[in-house]
Structures are given as structure tokens and as C-alpha cells.
């Protein structure tokens, strides 16, 4: 938990804050990308190479671009007239604080049950592959079905638009 962790987590938190506080929606999306990059750096700092690079590849390379496309193709890129803060921000703050406290309590409760390892395990891509195909093959297949459903849905939505135009 050295100085690198604090710097990276400061970057992530600032990116997340900027993603909700900025006025221009595309700026918010780019700040979200910075938050994703911070998460990837956290993974890399913990020596989880595969998770870190997959985070960059998937989140920054695909999800951030998806978010940006969604903002551009709907008219969200104009600055809203009434300002960016909603009127019920106090209730929102209370709910967020409640969720955070529950999650924090759950994580801290589980801390004594964690395995006491002094050296971080060196996970290679081989081991991840073996685990995915061996122990976790059912979640893998479920995620594959989910992705296929998303793909088929996207094709159907796009196709119906074409038929509607005829």
C-alpha cells in the first residue's frame, strides 16, 4: 500500500468525481475513461497483468467508445439548461452513503477470513485459461450466451430499422 496506490486511487476518484460533476457530457465520458484507466493501473499494481490489460482493452477500448457513441447519437452533448445537479441531491447522497456503509461493513467483516499470504500469487495466463475451462466453465458459457443474445438483439434492432424504411 505504498505511495503508488495512493496516487492511482486519487486519479481514479478524481476521474469518477469529474464524471459526475462536469457540465459537458462528453467531458464526463472522457473523465470516466480516466477512472477506468486508474482501475487498470490498480490491477497492474497488484501484479494482475491479465486483468489490467483486459480492463484497458475492454473498458477503454470498447465500453468508453460505446458510452461516447451513445452520448453523441442521442442529443446529450448539449449542455442542459437547468444545470447538472438534480433537485433531490440530498436524498441521493443519503442513499449512496447507506450503500457505501453496507458494502464497507461487508468487506471489513470478511477481512479476517482472507488467506494470510505474505507473497502475492503469481498468476499466469495459463492458470487463468485452465480455471476458465475447468472450474469456471459454467459462468463462461453463461456469459457467452449473454453476449450472443446481445449480438442477436443488436442485429435485429438494426435490421428492423432497414425494413421500416422500406
Amino acid at each position: 500500500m505504498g505511495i503508488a496506490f495512493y496516487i492511482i486511487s486519487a486519479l481514479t476518484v478524481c476521474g469518477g468525481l469529474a464524471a459526475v460533476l462536469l457540465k459537458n457530457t462528453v467531458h464526463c465520458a472522457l473523465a470516466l475513461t480516466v477512472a477506468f484507466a486508474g482501475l487498470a493501473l490498480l490491477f497492474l499494481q497488484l501484479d494482475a497483468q491479465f486483468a489490467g490489460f483486459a480492463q484497458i482493452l475492454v473498458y477503454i477500448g470498447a465500453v468508453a467508445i460505446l458510452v461516447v457513441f451513445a452520448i453523441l447519437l442521442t442529443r446529450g452533448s448539449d449542455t442542459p439548461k437547468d444545470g447538472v445537479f438534480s433537485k433531490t441531491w440530498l436524498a441521493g447522497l443519503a442513499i449512496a452513503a447507506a450503500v457505501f456503509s453496507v458494502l464497507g461493513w461487508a468487506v471489513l467483516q470478511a477481512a479476517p477470513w482472507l488467506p494470510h499470504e505474505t507473497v502475492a500469487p503469481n498468476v499466469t495466463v495459463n492458470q487463468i485459461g485452465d480455471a476458465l475451462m475447468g472450474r469456471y466453465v459454467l459462468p463462461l458459457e453463461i456469459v457467452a450466451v449473454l453476449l450472443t443474445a446481445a449480438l442477436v438483439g443488436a442485429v435485429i434492432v438494426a435490421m428492423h430499422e432497414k425494413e421500416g424504411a422500406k
Partner: protein
Amino acid sequence: MIDRLDQIFVLLKHWLVGYLPGEWQAAAGVVVSVVVIIGLYPALFALTTVLERKGVGRIQNRLGPNRVGPYGILQPMADGIKSLTKEDIVPRSADAVVHFLAPIVLVVTVFMGFAVLPMGRNMVLVDMDAGLLFYFAMGASTELSVFMAGWSSRNKYSLLGAMRAVAQMISYEVALLLSSVVVVMATGSLSLVKIVEAQNHYTWGLPHWYIFTPWGLAGFLMYAIAATAETNRSPFDLPEGESELVAGYHTEYSGFKFALFFLGEYVAMFSISGLGSTLFRGGWSAPLAFLTWVPSWIWFFGKLLVSMCVFIWLRGTLPRLRQDQLMNFAWKFVLPMCLLNLFVVALWRFIGDGWLRWLVCSAILVLAYVGIGWEGMSRKRLGARSYRYAD
């Protein structure tokens, strides 16, 4: 002696770093390698711009630049001075911060890709276990900078060019990754150093490069197509097509920022050609067994320059693809062939060694290619080719 020539850059680095005290040596070694990479590839970029302009010029039956220096060799100096002294125009309604950051993000992510390329024996900057994944992660980040450039210019043409570029890059990125997965399946490792070492063996004088196997050839062709599209290079250069979109997403950039975009595009070409050489053509290994006395870095950079020449040749020869043709091509031809290639490489490993696997794999790939081609062309009603000549 030959060994020392092969390792000459590594030995130079150790000699330079030896002047520093012990605990600084590792960091200093990394700094020296990084400085060399940052200095070398822009120099290669300067050489390539002349090569490209002369090459495309000769293909189009005209001379290229020939005023500056003998045969126009010093043209990059003139271009560099021009781009440094031009006024840096930022449109008034442009988003200044994002407009400024876009070329920086492009250049940074493109140079990061070189960290995992093995440029010679023992000449890789970082030998990562998941090196290939790191490379593709950096390539994926490049698309974000294209979008940032197009959106921040507040120009409809730029935005249109950026959207097209991002759609094209995302589609072909899937093809790029899938065509590289066959190499990972055959090698059993994501580390680029191990992939090159797996290809560095010779049978009857010929190397075990993956391009000489049926699935490797198919994979290399798909990779080459996807690489040409990823770097927005003709025939996939609709995003920056000069006759359609002014200059696409870098319309509103002048002076040095435009030079940075140009640099980023060419360095991305180098880096993706380097990766293609590493994955399919044996990286730094020599083509014939009796040529291994030539230093390994000469082979790597030679293959890189051959790839550059092929890119330039394609640019001068092929007409541009329209956006819908480009997307159709990606999703209906390249992607199915890549998926079939995965199946074929699995068959290759399961059928043992011998002539049977060559026959089966080649047959499957050729039939698929012919089948997809027939199916794609059957819907178009094209007549016989007719020629019109000027009288």
C-alpha cells in the same frame, strides 16, 4: 564476432549503463532503451514519408518530391521545419482541452505498443507474460484519441470522419484480435518473445514460420487486411479521404499537431507491421537456415520495411472502399474466415504431424474462401468486364 554484432545494441546499453552506480542501472537501462525507441521510429517515419511520396508518385507515373536534396531525400527536413513554424490554429468554438489532448493521447498510446515488440535477440523492452494483450490494449486506446480529435473540432466533417474511423477501427479490431489468437493457440503463450522463439527452428533449411502453414497464411492475410484498416490506410482510408471529407478527423489541426497525427499514424503502421512480423513471419529469425549469421535486428527491420513497401504499394494501387463495403467486408468475410481459422488451427494440432494435416487444413480454408466469395458475389449482378480506352 557474429554474436557480438547480433547483440551490439544490448552490449552498448550495458556499457553506457555501467557508468552509473549499481542501484540505478536497471532504471537507466530502461531509460536508454526508451530514448532509443523514441528516437529511432520517428527517424524511420521521416524515411518512410519520402519513400511513400516517391513510391506513390512513381506508381502514378509522376516523380515524387525531387527538389530538396538529391532525389528528394531531405524532404522530411523541409516538412519538419514547415510544421514547426506554422501557426497553430485552434477554432474558436473548439473544445480547447480535448483538442489539445487528442494528438498527445494518440502518440503516447502508439509508442507504448513498442514496449513488447522483440526487435532482435534479447532486444525487447519489457518481456511480459501477457505481451500480446498489452499490445492490443494500447491499440484499443488509440481509437479514443481519434474520436476526441473529431469531436473536439466542432466541425461536421471532422465528426463524420471520426465516427467512420471509430466504426471501422472497432470492426477490424475484432478481426485483428481473432487472427492473432490462432498464433497464441499454436504457440501456447501470449508472450511475444516465446512466439518468436517457437518459430526460430529450421527443417530442411526452411524456417518454422507460421506464415508457411495454411492456417498461418490465412491468419496473416486476415491480419494484414485488419492492420491496413486499423491504421486507416488505403484502401480503407475513407475517414481521411481527401476527396470526401477534407481531411476527416484531423481537419482542424494545423502545424505541429497535424504532424503529430501523421507521426502517430505512421508509427502505428510500424508497430502493427512489427507485430505482424513477430506473430507470423518469425520476428527476428532469418528466412533460411544458412542465413542466421546476419544479425537478428537486421531481419526485423528488413521485414518492417518490406511491410511498409507493401502498404505503400497497396495505397498506390487499390481504389478506396466505401464505408458500407468496408463494414460488410469486415463482418461478412474477414470475421467468418478468422473464426474458421481458429477451428482449423485446432484441427492442425489434433491431427498429428505429417502430410494429412496440411491437406485437410488447406482444403477447409480454400473451400471456405471460395464458398464465401461465391455467396457474396451471387447477390450482385455483375456483367462481363468491359474496357473503355481513350481514343
